């Protein structure tokens, strides 16, 4: 995001006595939009983690309020149903004293056929400074970021990215198992159709984790974990940027879940959409749960105390057994709690970026 970076001035120092922060936060944070974790540096992720810890302290107070964003207008624009993410953003904004307006695609001009660009420009015109956007189509928040002046946070776009989920997963994991560098983290389930998986993979790779992906081949996206000879040999005549960019993060594929979880430091499960059966991607839920369900027997093969995560909503008995979901290893509730703090941290860090 060098182009936006160059046009930004440094974050102006603000008087926010209520929020205890890492001193060098403004030094690493120049980001205007949060669209995915693919362009985050490890330092930026650290800044979010440290700020999240400060936000957790605020949330633990008797009166959890720190009006650092008083006078800021946040609009949540959800083109797709969501419970936890939207509520989490709304609460995060309100704890920090922002005005939060919630819009969903039903009951708005969207239903009258207004284009996305017109919608975000309208929201900008009425004073939205931060746009939190959920959309069923990959790349939609990028379109919004290009065509309006508001700061955009991607709250999930299609199969592409869910960066705030990725960050809260990183925070939650680290809180339980410590530094992630070199740790064996298993991601199991429908990676092909999962924005959570993509953002988790980017985030984990930035922090140097060893990522093991376990899924039936029908639920793996193209080329992930495959050797890619053509990537380093972009022809000069194609004139496209390529050198120095990472095409896809390195992951190891292990289709056998028992092998994948062996010695794992943590296991991240993904929601299985029931419609995958209709598309011929899977024979049955029964077979899926037999081969890919994270259950107690399998978790016994992981490192002792290895935690389990799930972005929710869960299909208990399908991708995760009820016993594991409610075991001491489960971090699922912590994920939801940390979601508010991570989103507070991002809103706070983005306050000064122009």
């Amino acid at each position, binding site marked *: 995001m060098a*182009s936006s970076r160059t046009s930004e001035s440094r974050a102006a120092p603000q008087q926010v006595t209520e929020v205890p922060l890492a001193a060098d936060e403004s030094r690493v944070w120049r980001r205007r939009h949060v669209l995915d974790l693919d362009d985050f540096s490890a330092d930026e992720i650290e800044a979010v983690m440290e700020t999240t810890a400060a936000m957790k302290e605020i949330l633990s107070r008797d009166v959890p309020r720190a009006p650092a964003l008083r006078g800021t207008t946040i609009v949540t624009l959800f083109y797709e149903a969501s419970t936890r993410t939207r509520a989490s953003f709304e609460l995060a904004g309100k704890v920090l004293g922002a005005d939060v307006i919630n819009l969903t695609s039903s009951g708005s001009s969207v239903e009258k056929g207004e284009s996305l*660009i017109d919608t975000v420009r309208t929201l900008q015109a009425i004073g939205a400074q931060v746009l939190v956007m959920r959309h069923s189509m*990959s790349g939609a928040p*990028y379109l919004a970021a290009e065509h309006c002046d508001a700061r955009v946070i991607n709250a999930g776009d299609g*199969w592409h990215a869910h960066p705030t989920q990725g960050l809260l997963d990183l925070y939650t994991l680290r809180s339980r198992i410590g530094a992630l560098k070199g740790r064996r983290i298993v991601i199991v389930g429908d990676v092909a159709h999962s924005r959570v998986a993509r953002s988790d993979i980017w985030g984990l790779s930035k922090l140097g984790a060893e990522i093991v992906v376990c899924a039936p081949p029908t639920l793996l996206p193209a080329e*992930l974990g495959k050797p890619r000879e053509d990537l380093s040999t972009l022809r000069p*005549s*194609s004139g*496209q940027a390529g050198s120095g960019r990472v095409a*896809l993060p390195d992951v190891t594929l292990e289709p056998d879940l028992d092998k994948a979880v062996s010695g794992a430091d943590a296991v991240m499960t993904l929601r299985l959409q029931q419609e995958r059966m209709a598309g011929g991607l899977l024979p049955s839920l029964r077979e899926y749960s037999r081969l890919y369900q994270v259950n107690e027997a399998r978790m016994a093969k992981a490192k002792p105390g290895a935690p389990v995560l799930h972005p929710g909503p869960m299909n208990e008995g399908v991708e995760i057994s009820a016993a594991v979901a409610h075991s001491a290893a489960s971090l699922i509730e912590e994920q939801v709690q940390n979601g508010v703090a991570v989103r507070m941290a991002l809103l706070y860090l983005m306050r000064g970026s122009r």
Partner: protein
Amino acid sequence: MARLLTIIKGGRVLDPANAVDMTGDVLIEGDVIKAAGADLSPRASTGSARTEIKVIEAKGLVVAPGFVDLHTHLREPGYEYKETIETGTRAAARGGFTTICAMPNTEPAMDNRGTVDYVMQRAAEQGLVRVLPIGAVTKGREGKLLAELGELADAGCIGFSDDGSPVADASIMRHALEYASALGPSTIRQDSGQAPSISSGQAGSGRGLAIIDHCEDPQLAGGVMHEGWVSTRLGLKGIPSASEENMVARDIALARQTGGHVHIAHLSTAGAVELVRRARAEGAHVTAEVTPHHLALTHEAVMHREGYERLAYDTNAKMYPPLRGEADVAACIAGLMDGTIDAIATDHAPHAVQEKLCEFDLAANGIVGLETALALSLTAAVTLERVVEALTIGPVRALGLDRSIPGIGTLSEGAPADVVIFDPKREWTVDPADFVSKGKSTPLAGRTLRGAVVATVYAGEVVHALEGTGA
């Protein structure tokens, strides 16, 4: 009336059909080529007092037969907001094209004589270059019932296609190939300002008319870009290479079965190129075209846009078939160079701005190509000589267009006086705002390309001249 001679002097005359590549002149009398070769000024000056001579200096420039595009979407009738015959043919002239084959996915579709007649009439009145219609294979392009191919041939159609969609039903494709194999082309005489006069098709030319197929297996398609690491990165639904290859393999089998002629539109995958290569070696009547963008760009264009650092989700790089991987680009270039692929065709597919300024999944498919075709082809790793061949006699022979218009795609004596003059070294930066096409959608905006059309001569008249060149 004075006899009008035009002499294009001192250029590199490149006429692949006649194996001519020499410095010299091209002499035009009225609307036909008189001669092409070495110094022709003595012949030009032997005229009577009533002879008017126009001289076009072409020193340092390439002089070649006017380009022929087998694959243009003119959008008229029905989608005049995207393009019209007038703007589309102007764009063609600007790109060096003197003949463009109009795809039938108009509204109504060119599946009947009335619509074809309308297009031909409009082209005669407003077109700057020659328009040859391609008829629909099936009624309404619905893939169910054969259109009246015989009458479409009589109306001047030079082939048939349901382009935009494949002929999905193998049985319909089989029957179309069989039926079209017995049809002859019509002879077309198109004078500007008048309706074209068409003499009905001669049977027994032996080759029939081609079915031009947009090869995409509907069950495997359904994505919005090439399936590969970029689609994974962007979270966009991919179209696997097998989607194209499956249909190409089917069409080859049907061409063998029927003896019919299948022309594969816009080849894009390494596997499909190899299938065509083998089929041709084995004698099947299969021809093929490739677009300049499939020769020069990869799926990375969806992700990266010139001068833009974020993921681009560039709808100006969205088209069917999609831009594919490095190996596919290399295979398309190799296929063009070894003759597996006959022609470079633009698949010029203009859309209105708002149809591209939206979410990637919702964006219209297709980009404009007429005004960048030469430069982009030259920018790809293809030789100048082969590019000219694949833009002139290549497409003519692929579909047998010389049966309708003798001499087209050549500088032979008596051929239509269709000539392009271009500077293969001149660099220019693509600015879609400069396009004369109504369509502005191209992934090349801001890119500097090499190779500029200096002048285009159609039927003896200069229909395009680059500003400041004096042509």
